[in-house]
């Protein structure tokens, strides 16, 4: 069996946990596969938590680096993705905690980069009324700004639930808290967003 055949088998068939065991034995190819498999989600989650592309790139790389260093300590009690999210979310929350105080009062939203197009361009439904779309775009921007104002734990819980589609039990493992606490985080986060949407709709009408 040649090197190329091994690489293909790693890419298509090997589970994350098996790859991690190989990484623990310093298998560079396994690490590359693991990174390629999770880099997109890692970067997206880090960016959603931090709203800074440079920081998101740096911290998602740092999370992979820690995976490489500590692969041997993975005991298999949780899925690799849960373990990895825990490393990444902790890095991001620590980074926010250490952030300069004035950054807390500044909302940086790179999602409004004109080169990439705004929410309007990313939404389907070209046949819809442009006025409706504009109102919807404003409303969504308002809701996502409200997401920025949530507490770090609430925001992390909401993003892991909505964006990464993690179950409550998995979020509890990532955030190292009980499922009941995760439910409270989600309830408070969505309640705040419901109020924002309610205000937005009443302003529009």
């Amino acid at each position: 069996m040649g090197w190329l055949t091994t690489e293909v088998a790693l890419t298509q068939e090997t589970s994350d946990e098996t790859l991690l065991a190989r990484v623990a034995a310093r298998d560079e190819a396994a690490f590359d596969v693991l990174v390629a498999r999770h880099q997109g989600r890692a970067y997206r989650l880090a960016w959603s938590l931090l709203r800074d592309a440079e920081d998101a790139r740096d911290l998602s790389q740092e999370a992979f680096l820690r995976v490489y260093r500590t692969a041997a300590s993975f005991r298999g009690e949780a899925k690799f993705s849960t373990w990895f999210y825990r490393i990444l979310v902790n890095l991001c929350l620590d980074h926010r905690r250490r952030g300069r105080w004035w950054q807390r009062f500044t909302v940086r939203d790179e999602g409004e980069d004109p080169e990439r197009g705004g929410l309007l361009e990313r939404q389907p439904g070209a046949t819809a009324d442009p006025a409706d779309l504009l109102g919807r775009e404003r409303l969504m921007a308002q809701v996502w700004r409200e997401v920025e104002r949530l507490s770090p734990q609430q925001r992390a819980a909401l993003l892991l639930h909505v964006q990464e589609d993690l179950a409550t039990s998995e979020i509890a493992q990532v955030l190292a808290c009980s499922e009941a606490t995760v439910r409270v985080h989600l309830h408070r986060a969505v309640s705040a967003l419901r109020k924002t949407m309610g205000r937005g709709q009443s302003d529009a009408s």
Partner: protein
Amino acid sequence: MHPESELIAFVRGDLPPAERARVAAHVDGCSACRRAADESRVVLEALVAGAPAPPPLDWGRYQAELRARVAASRRAWWRRPVPTVLAAGFATALIVFAVHGLPRTPSDVVTMEETVLGARLPLLQQYQIVERLDMLEDLDAIRQLDRLGGAR
């Protein structure tokens, strides 16, 4: 009691069957919770549909940077940049100082003997047995003076 904290998990179908049945029964009979569940569903669906995407990345560059970081972390300590080695040396010196303190010089010892002598001076003045100052150099003899004073 309204199942407020379970409502999001209920809407997302993320509750165990027994809990789900209990919350469903409550929501059916409670207009406030039904409304809260409906509004929560709208918010969650809107969040999924309208999630802003991060700026695009050059993944080739990303992986190259990561490989460089991994290689740097593997590098032996003596091949790391000088500041790292210096910092490690300074940290080691601090630890040694914290554990052992500064090395004692002979002058420190003399100072300690003088301190002991000074503390005993009033006692020494009461004893006629102290005839020769040479005896004062013997710390053991000085320590015995306490006992002699008590016996007197």
